[in-house]
């Protein structure tokens, strides 16, 4: 008989072996020599944590109680592995590219990094996992009890054993599960240890099976006979339960936190899935091969014993003690591997989605040292692991070792598969939204708790018997195990049906009704199209193509010449020719920095990451890109505004320049005119004075020439006077000597100075003496200057046989008009506005000493006097109207 002490010693030795294996694997991994640590076999074996103590011991018990139904637990995963491999591949791909750390992280990421969803899934995982851990503790405690003296087989003793086991597992898990904080959350040591445990449990179960079939019975034929004779043969297939159980087991393979951990998080190569797709079902097949024989033999050999422990008790009772010891180790392995991985998975969720957010919220100051955070995260993990195992132990302690534990596995399955709609929907349906996922999860979780979990504690344990029988508040339609009056169905089928139906319905309906946010859209597309986002090519050829892609991108951003120079230089530094350097981290970093100068750091990072496929572009990256884009748009808007301003300034400058050019042209033509006006009289003066100096002319000629010289000199003088006068008037430096005078007085003076006494012949001037009495407040000299100009012009240019000039004064109210109208042929319409410009003589023939400045001067004078001078058309001859303000308008 094997003593309890030996069992404990063997246990300790086995645990020590696991420690060593895990430590060695960790060391290899730390040195980068992953080698066989990353083999598909190890991956497949690690998946075997699906087979817990519940399957190791419980399958036989299950078969004893329910016949072949136990097989559904193996059929579900097999069907998923074979038929739904594409879903698993997608899951693993996303997990790797998005650096997913847990199933809660996956759901949260998919729906726009929603922490609410993370918390929901975490809670679901904790609630779903705790009973399962309790089950493992129970099975280990029970298996210990088998070897213990009869006296120790008490609830108290079991409880103590469970506590010790829980404590031991806590230590192991903390040691290997939180050794370091890795972005990938991969635990090579733990995986190696559970792979070993997978071998141990398979070998143990096969050994017991061989022992039973060939040792106890007389080979397969005998076994079949015994099966026929046993109650197992009479078990009938309950279609509803079968379908439900196969569905649950299959879904659990995807949704169980620990399965997600080994399948997705710990996955180091997606191709391992291909191996696992046939190797894992094979493993399950071998695990289930001897279940029925052991059950049949157990039932006939050990009637009255606990069928859940046949695997252990059969060899023990039949004195195959070492086989019993192996079997014990198999069960121990099953229990511990499950607990360790589940604790790691759940603690990761708890620390990431519950502890850390709270801790960060409590620490108001966002800035902290990275080491600080690492320590905090690790501590949170450790505490979480302890808490998860403590919860498991408490559950075991509270529920006792009652029959309730038997169904725990399935109840847990039903709980965690509530994640399925949100998970599968999120992977394949871009329309799935956060609201839909949260709604579905909550409703599914609630229905599961109401119809299955809470009633599972037994009548009156949590739910009052009254409520179970008649529904809450007597509402029969809401009876927990017969919703809407559907009774007579297996409680499990009932619960799974309702929870999944409502869950899926709410998920779909809310998703359709709500709209995903920007992050959700991006993540949704990223998840659903995960394969489209990655290049199929791998390895060396990919690296070259990558460099080419990067060059193409860089050329577009920083310009071909600069990009080529940069790539060429980088290639040269690596000792390569050409333009395509190896895409080493150093080079990528340099490229990123270079690009950041042009497009911003976030964009550069996202672009390089996207092209190399080294890092997935996270939502934060994309948001940073959007921020940068917004900033650039803002900057560009500013530039546009500036450019518009510059445009306006340029237009103004152009206008000014045009004006200056015009002024310059006017000045040139003015100077040219003045030159002409000065040179012409000088020519005459010079010519005639030379003639006079030569002395060749006779007396009358000499007199004529002297007269010409005299006249031309006067003409020159008048021109200079006019020019100076105009210059003064135009510069506005005129001082007006105002006085109140009658118009007649001014007109008299003007006539007198244009017609020297005694020379007035043949030029009649008619006036309006009555009207001329009007008084005006003006500068009399300046006004007279204007009148003189007009009268002398009429005298010079009026070509009528009997020239005459009418001077008509009329009162216009505020002003007086003085019209000068002669009887000549007037001024053609085309010249009527031109005549007031400088040097605007209409004919050169009739010049009589004028330089063409007269009317220009008149215009300036009248402007200064606050009046005006205009040509008055339609009067027969030339007619000018001078408007003089009477008194009030006093122009400066």
């Amino acid at each position, binding site marked *: 008989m094997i003593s309890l002490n030996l069992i404990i010693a063997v246990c300790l030795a086995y645990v020590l072996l696991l420690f060593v294996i895990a430590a060695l694997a960790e060391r290899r991994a730390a040195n980068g020599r992953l080698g066989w640590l990353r083999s598909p076999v190890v991956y497949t074996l690690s998946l075997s944590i699906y087979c817990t103590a519940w399957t190791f011991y419980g399958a036989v018990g299950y078969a004893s109680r329910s016949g072949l139904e136990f097989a559904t637990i193996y059929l579900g995963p097999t069907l998923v592995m074979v038929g739904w491999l594409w879903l698993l591949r997608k899951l693993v791909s996303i997990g790797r590219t998005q650096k997913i750390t847990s199933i809660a992280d996956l759901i949260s990421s998919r729906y726009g990094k929603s922490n609410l969803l993370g918390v929901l899934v975490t809670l679901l995982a904790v609630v779903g996992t705790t009973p399962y851990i309790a089950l493992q503790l129970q099975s280990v405690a029970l298996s210990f009890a088998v070897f213990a003296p009869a006296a120790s087989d008490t609830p108290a003793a079991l409880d103590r054993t469970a506590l010790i086991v829980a404590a031991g597992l806590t230590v192991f898990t903390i040691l290997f599960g939180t050794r370091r904080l890795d972005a990938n959350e991969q635990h090579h040591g733990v995986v190696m240890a559970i792979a070993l445990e997978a071998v141990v449990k398979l070998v143990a179960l096969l050994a017991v099976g061989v022992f039973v079939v060939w040792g106890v019975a007389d080979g397969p034929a005998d076994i079949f006979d015994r099966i026929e004779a046993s109650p197992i043969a009479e078990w009938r297939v309950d279609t509803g339960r079968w379908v439900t159980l196969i569905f649950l087991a299959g879904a659990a393979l995807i949704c169980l936190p620990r399965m997600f951990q080994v399948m997705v998080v710990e996955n180091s190569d997606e191709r391992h899935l291909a191996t696992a797709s046939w190797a894992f079902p094979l493993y399950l097949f071998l695990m289930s091969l001897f279940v029925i024989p052991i059950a049949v033999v157990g039932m006939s050999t050990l009637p009255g014993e606990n069928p859940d422990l046949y695997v252990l008790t059969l060899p023990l009772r039949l004195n195959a003690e070492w086989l019993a010891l192996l079997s014990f180790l198999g069960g121990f392995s099953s229990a511990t591997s499950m607990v360790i991985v589940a604790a790691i998975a759940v603690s990761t969720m708890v620390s990431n989605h519950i502890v850390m957010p709270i801790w960060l919220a409590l620490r108001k100051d966002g800035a902290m040292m990275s080491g600080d955070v690492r320590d905090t995260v690790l501590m949170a993990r450790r505490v979480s692991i302890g808490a998860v195992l403590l919860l498991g132990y408490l559950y075991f302690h509270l529920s006792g070792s009652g029959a309730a534990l038997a169904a725990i596995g399935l109840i847990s399955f039903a709980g965690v598969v509530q994640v399925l709609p949100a998970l599968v929907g999120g992977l394949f349906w871009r329309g799935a939204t956060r609201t839909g996922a949260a709604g579905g999860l909550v409703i599914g979780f609630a229905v599961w708790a109401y119809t299955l979990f809470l009633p599972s504690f037994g009548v009156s344990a949590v739910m009052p018997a009254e409520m179970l029988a008649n529904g809450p508040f007597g509402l029969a339609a809401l009876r927990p195990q017969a919703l809407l009056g559907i009774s007579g169905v297996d409680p499990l089928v009932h619960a799974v049906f309702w929870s999944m139906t409502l869950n899926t319905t709410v998920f779909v309906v809310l998703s359709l009704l709500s709209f995903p946010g920007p992050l959700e859209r991006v993540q949704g597309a990223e998840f659903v199209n995960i394969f489209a986002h990655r290049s199929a090519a791998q390895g060396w050829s990919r690296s070259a193509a990558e460099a080419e892609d990067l060059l193409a991108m860089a050329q577009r951003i920083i310009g071909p010449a600069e990009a080529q120079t940069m790539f060429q230089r980088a290639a040269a530094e690596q000792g390569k020719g050409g333009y395509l350097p190896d895409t080493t981290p150093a080079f990528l970093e340099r490229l990123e920095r270079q690009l950041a100068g042009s497009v911003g750091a976030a964009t550069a990072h996202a672009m390089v990451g996207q092209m190399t496929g080294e890092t997935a572009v996270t939502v934060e990256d994309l948001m940073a890109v959007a921020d940068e884009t917004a900033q650039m748009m803002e900057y560009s808007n500013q530039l546009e505004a500036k450019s518009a301003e510059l445009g306006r300034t340029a237009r103004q400058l152009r206008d000014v320049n045009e004006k200056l050019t015009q002024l310059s042209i006017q000045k040139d033509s003015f100077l*040219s005119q003045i*030159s*002409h006006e000065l*040179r*012409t*009289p*000088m*020519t*005459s*003066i*010079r*010519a*005639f004075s*030379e*003639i006079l100096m*030569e002395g*060749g*002319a006779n007396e009358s*000629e000499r007199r004529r020439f002297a007269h*010409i010289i005299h*006249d*031309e000199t006067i003409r020159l003088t008048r021109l200079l006077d006019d020019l100076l006068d105009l210059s003064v008037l135009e510069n506005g430096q005129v001082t007006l000597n105002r006085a109140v005078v009658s118009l007649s007085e001014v007109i008299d003076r003007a006539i007198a100075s244009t017609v020297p006494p005694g020379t007035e012949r043949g030029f009649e001037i008619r006036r309006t003496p009555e009207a001329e009495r009007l008084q005006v407040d003006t500068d009399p000299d300046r006004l007279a200057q204007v009148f003189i100009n007009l009268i002398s012009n009429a005298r010079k240019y009026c070509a009528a046989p009997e020239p005459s000039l009418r001077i008509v004064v009329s009162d216009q109210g505020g002003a007086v008009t003085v019209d000068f109208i002669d009887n000549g042929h007037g001024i053609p319409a085309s010249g009527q506005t031109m005549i007031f410009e400088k040097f605007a003589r209409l*004919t*050169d*023939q009739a010049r009589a000493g004028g330089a063409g400045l007269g009317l220009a001067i008149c215009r300036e004078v009248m402007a200064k006097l606050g009046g005006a001078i205009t040509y008055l058309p339609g009067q027969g001859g030339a007619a000018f109207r001078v408007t003089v303000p009477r008194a009030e308008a006093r122009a400066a």
Partner: protein
Amino acid sequence: MTKKVLLIEDEPSIIQAISFILSRDGWTVDSHADGATAIEAVARKRPDVVVLDLMLPNRSGLDILTDLRANAETEALPVLMLTARGQKRDREMAERLGATLFMTKPFSNAEVLASVNALAGAA
């Protein structure tokens, strides 16, 4: 036979001065003041030399010169151009259009006489 000069000029005192100087030297001087009819005057008078003012009423001296050079009968006719504006641009333009000589007012009598005689000799 005395040589004929046609003076196309609108300033009366200048006409008097140049007429006096040239006729004293034996030239037959005709004058014409209107730019518009200057070409007909040249055709009618058939002068040996033309003295042409640049600024004339109704038609510019440059236009008249262009017409003279375009006509086969007058294309070699010596033309002395006068201007009172004194701008370099005018001189260049006149020489390009075929003025034989160019003179800026005011000028010395001897200069005018020498120029007209030189033109007559060249012709």
